[in-house]
């Protein structure tokens, strides 16, 4: 049975069944008709036919057996043959399976991550109906009403919108900040950090999430501010902290002196609405002030810190939902503006809008960050797989060439070409299956390492990358494609032979077309590998450029300790300040510690507001100033050089004049042409932040990211601004293992109730902002090297094979006086020609595709000659190395032995 019929049969099974049914029906009716024509009644005729022959069903079964039984039998036989054939050449099988496993495994691993971050829907009811109000890009709180698309909302707005809306069957609010307070669990001795998401009472119903245990929050849990001390635990926290003990229900948690009761556990797969976050507890927004003292947004329409997510009613389309939402939105805004809105108010109401964003996959934070990187990597691994396929195809070609006589013999005794092709495809299918199975296993381990690589700090992101149905389906499709890609051409090639010549063939004649094909494959492999290597070196050099960016401070040897004064019951007053000063002094006094300072912002984000300078007109172009509140030793600790004036000092305290040290960029932007020392500025209307005197100017520092240009930054002493600062920077002199414990002891000597935990070091925090670049650089390098390695195997295989085939030729040449060095040169020169052709092609690929990754590069162009040249040299070197051994073997051919072989 030919391959085509074989596949057709499997595909058209239904049509076949219908056809058979009709045919048998017609047959039986003809038999019955014949009897009725003889005068029998129709019942008699039917019975007689039924008695005489089997039933239609039995006949069909027999036909099916004849068909599919044959297929099954043939397939089993092919598999048996295939296994035997593969077992006979274990080295080939091992190399092919490993090659495929690496290729398929890399694809599955990257796809697992891509699936989890970019493709998977939230595990909630009908996620397609969910929409987010605004793009959900901001995190934090804002007091200004945006002049365009809104994305953070106040609790009063949420409440009013929820009560008046027509388009949504459920609306929920979620605080944009994941809080990390310390909690005393079930009256335990120590405090533990917990991640708390503040949500509206409607949250679980709107998402359609049912509890795994107990109950979820309801609207009734979110009515009276401060009156609903209940919490729903996440499944993973329940598992981690309570080993899934159902006794968790009713347990008490103390957070900032409020006692909460655990009323339920969320289902296993539910992690909230933000991929990459996994809150431990959900607590009603009514408890905002109790969980996060200092926040008081329940009645304040200017305190905008919430995301709003809605579920469209069935039958309400996206356009209708958007129209309804914006209509109601503008009504509410007009109310805010009061009975007599100014022209400016009306104008900003006209411009304000809510863009409804599809939220079936949850908030897009990780997606925005990683989507380009992940797609780049997906393309990279697809190319690696292509190279792997090419390798296996080449191996199969070589192998098939060695089996020409076997095929010729089989065809001469009656095997059809289709039969042999099927046999060969089954062999590559077995290789593909084995490779795929091994690949899935590899990827399982690899995807966890990948997850750690995409995580910005030492904690792996809580994302589930275990293989699911979609991932396994993906792997299956990839494996089948692999089999077809690598097996089809060799199978057709190997069986398309002239019988007589193949049977007579020795080693003298070279199958030209086969050789062209495998040479072509090598050229393709080299070109793709070069492209991947060039990409990898571009990404590596970008990363190096980022790592060498002058941050303006010294990130090394600075550890960060998290301290939670709120949990220890502090309020913003003199006691807090005195505690902070004492902690800084005591920690700085530890031997091996140079300096210690509390800070507000570590690196990567912060608080911004424009400054106003007396006598200087305000302009819309004024750059925002980043503000950091720090201890007196901060600038010295960070080794930020002072250019003019002085640093902050312990003498800048609550009693003295409020001061600030600013960066050069701030001086340039706000005090152009004059010395800023002794001048003053203010921030907004807050009385706390008026008339701040500039006492020093520092060199510029990076504040939010490494790619950012110099931005205005100002530093203020915490002694003059009461505020909770949770991070203690400590500069150490050397590496002391006991330092963490000594810092803890020093803090507890000041106040034993302060929860203390070690956070990532400053270097880790800074490096965490280049996670994405590091991911792409490291992986593309690994895959580029893998590609080059696979190509080398390809080159080695093809060159070796050709030498075997040309043993005669070389023998004759040598007999006629060719030197061994000459033979060596011939082989190397021929390989070099292949490699150079491939490299030229690869260069074109690299230059063309480079444009697509330009946005991912830093400090160099996509045609960076150094990167591409380096890749070229590396590729050429390893390729020639791969040809070296076979060439050496060619040069060592014994002419007598070679000629005797024939």
């Amino acid at each position, binding site marked *: 049975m030919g391959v085509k019929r074989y596949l057709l049969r499997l595909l058209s099974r239904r049509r076949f069944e219908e056809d058979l049914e009709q045919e048998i029906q*017609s047959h039986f009716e003809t038999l019955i008709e014949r009897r009725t024509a003889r005068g029998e009644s129709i019942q008699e005729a039917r019975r007689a036919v039924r008695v005489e022959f089997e039933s239609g069903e039995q006949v069909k079964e027999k036909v099916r*057996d*004849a*068909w599919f039984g044959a297929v099954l039998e043939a397939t089993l036989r092919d598999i048996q043959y295939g296994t035997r054939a593969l077992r006979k050449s274990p080295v080939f099988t091992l190399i092919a399976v490993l090659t495929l496993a690496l290729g398929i495994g890399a694809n599955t691993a990257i796809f697992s991550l891509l699936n989890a971050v970019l493709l998977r829907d939230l595990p909630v009811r009908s996620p397609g109906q969910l929409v987010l109000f605004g793009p959900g890009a901001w995190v934090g709180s804002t007091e200004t009403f945006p002049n365009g698309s809104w994305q953070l909302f106040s609790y009063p707005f949420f409440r009013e919108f929820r009560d008046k809306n027509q388009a949504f069957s459920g609306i929920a609010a979620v605080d944009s900040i994941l809080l990390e307070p310390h909690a005393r669990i079930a009256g335990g001795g120590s405090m533990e950090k917990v991640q708390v998401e503040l949500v509206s009472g409607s949250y679980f119903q709107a998402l359609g999430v049912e509890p795994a245990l107990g109950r979820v929050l309801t609207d009734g849990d979110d009515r009276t501010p401060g009156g609903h001390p209940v919490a729903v635990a996440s499944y993973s926290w329940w598992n981690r902290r309570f080993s899934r003990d159902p006794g968790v229900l009713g347990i008490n948690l103390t957070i900032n002196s409020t006692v909460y009761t655990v009323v339920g556990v969320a289902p296993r797969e539910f992690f909230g609405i933000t991929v990459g976050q996994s809150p431990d507890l959900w607590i009603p927004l009514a408890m905002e002030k109790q969980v996060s003292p200092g926040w008081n947004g329940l009645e304040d329409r200017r305190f905008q810190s919430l995301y709003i997510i809605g579920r469209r009613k069935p039958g309400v389309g996206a356009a209708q939902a958007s129209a309804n939402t914006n209509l109601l939105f503008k009504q509410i805004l007009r109310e805010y503006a009061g009975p007599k809105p100014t022209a400016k108010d009306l104008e900003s109401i006209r411009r304000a809008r809510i863009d409804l964003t599809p939220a079936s996959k949850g908030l897009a934070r990780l997606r925005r960050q990683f989507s380009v990187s992940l797609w780049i990597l997906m393309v990279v691994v697809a190319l690696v797989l292509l190279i792997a396929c090419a390798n296996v195809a080449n191996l199969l070609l070589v192998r098939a060439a060695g089996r020409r006589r076997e095929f010729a013999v089989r065809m001469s005794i009656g095997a059809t070409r289709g039969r042999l092709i099927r046999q060969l495809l089954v062999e590559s299918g077995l290789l593909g299956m084995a490779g795929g199975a091994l690949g899935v296993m590899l990827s399982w381990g690899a995807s966890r390492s990948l997850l750690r690589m995409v995580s910005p700090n030492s904690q792996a992101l809580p994302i589930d990358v275990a293989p699911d149905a979609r991932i396994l389906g993906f792997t299956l499709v990839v494996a089948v494609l692999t089999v077809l890609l690598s097996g089809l051409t060799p199978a057709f090639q190997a069986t398309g032979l002239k019988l007589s010549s193949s049977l007579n063939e020795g080693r003298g004649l070279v199958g030209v077309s086969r050789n062209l094909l495998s040479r072509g494959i090598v050229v393709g492999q080299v070109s793709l590998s070069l492209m991947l290597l060039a990409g990898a070196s571009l990404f590596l050099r970008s990363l190096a450029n980022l790592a060498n960016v002058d941050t303006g401070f010294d990130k090394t040897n600075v550890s960060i300790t998290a301290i939670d004064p709120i949990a220890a019951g502090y309020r913003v007053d003199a006691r807090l300040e005195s505690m902070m000063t004492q902690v800084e002094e005591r920690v700085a006094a530890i031997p091996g510690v140079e300096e210690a300072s509390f800070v507000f912002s570590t690196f990567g984000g912060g608080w911004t507001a424009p400054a106003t300078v007396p006598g200087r007109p305000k302009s819309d172009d004024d750059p925002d100033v980043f503000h950091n509140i720090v201890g007196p030793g901060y600038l010295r600790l960070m080794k930020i050089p002072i250019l003019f004036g002085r640093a902050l000092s312990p003498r800048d305290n609550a009693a003295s004049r409020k001061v600030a040290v600013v960066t050069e960029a701030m001086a340039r932007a706000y005090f152009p042409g004059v010395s800023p020392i002794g001048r003053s500025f203010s921030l907004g209307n807050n009385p706390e932040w008026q008339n701040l005197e500039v006492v020093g100017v520092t060199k510029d520092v990076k504040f939010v990211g490494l790619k950012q240009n110099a931005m205005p930054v100002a530093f203020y002493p915490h002694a003059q601004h009461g505020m909770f600062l949770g991070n203690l920077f400590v500069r150490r002199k050397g590496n002391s293992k006991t330092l963490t414990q000594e810092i803890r002891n020093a803090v507890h000597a000041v106040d034993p109730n302060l929860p203390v935990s070690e956070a990532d070091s400053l270097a880790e925090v800074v490096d965490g902002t280049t996670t994405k670049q590091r991911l792409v650089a490291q992986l593309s390098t690994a895959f580029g090297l893998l590609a080059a390695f696979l190509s080398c195997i390809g080159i080695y295989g093809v060159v070796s094979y050709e030498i075997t085939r040309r043993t005669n030729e070389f023998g004759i040449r040598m007999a006629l006086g060719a030197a061994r060095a000459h033979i060596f040169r011939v082989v190397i020169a021929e390989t070099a020609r292949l490699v150079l052709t491939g490299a030229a092609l690869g260069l074109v690929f690299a230059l063309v595709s480079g444009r697509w990754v330009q946005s991912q590069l830093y400090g160099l162009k996509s045609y960076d000659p150094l990167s591409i040249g380096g890749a070229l040299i590396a590729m050429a070197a390893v390729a020639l190395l791969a040809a070296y051994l076979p060439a050496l073997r060619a040069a060592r051919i014994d002419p007598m032995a070679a000629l005797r072989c024939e």
Partner: protein
Amino acid sequence: MAKPADLLQGTLDLLILQTLEPGPLHGVGIADRIEQATHGVFVVGPGSLFPALHRLADKGWIEGKWGELESGRRAKFYSLTPPGRAQLTREKRGWQKVRTAMSQVLGEET
């Protein structure tokens, strides 16, 4: 019921090919023709006929096309393909050999 196919592998296939030599026939027609030609020795039920027809079609020796009976009923008509015709010639020759050999053996005995 006689099951000729069990008696000698390929006998039924050969009979069907032979039956189709003059021209296309439908299933009932084939069964009738075999029964008549063998004077009722071989009665071919649908349980043997259809698997055999499909086996032959699968090998590409015969092909089936839908057509109409005199009664107006739709039925599948089978006809020999050129490879089928070649196969018939080959099988006949093979059968001839077997028959000659068999009758020589049996003839000596009788």
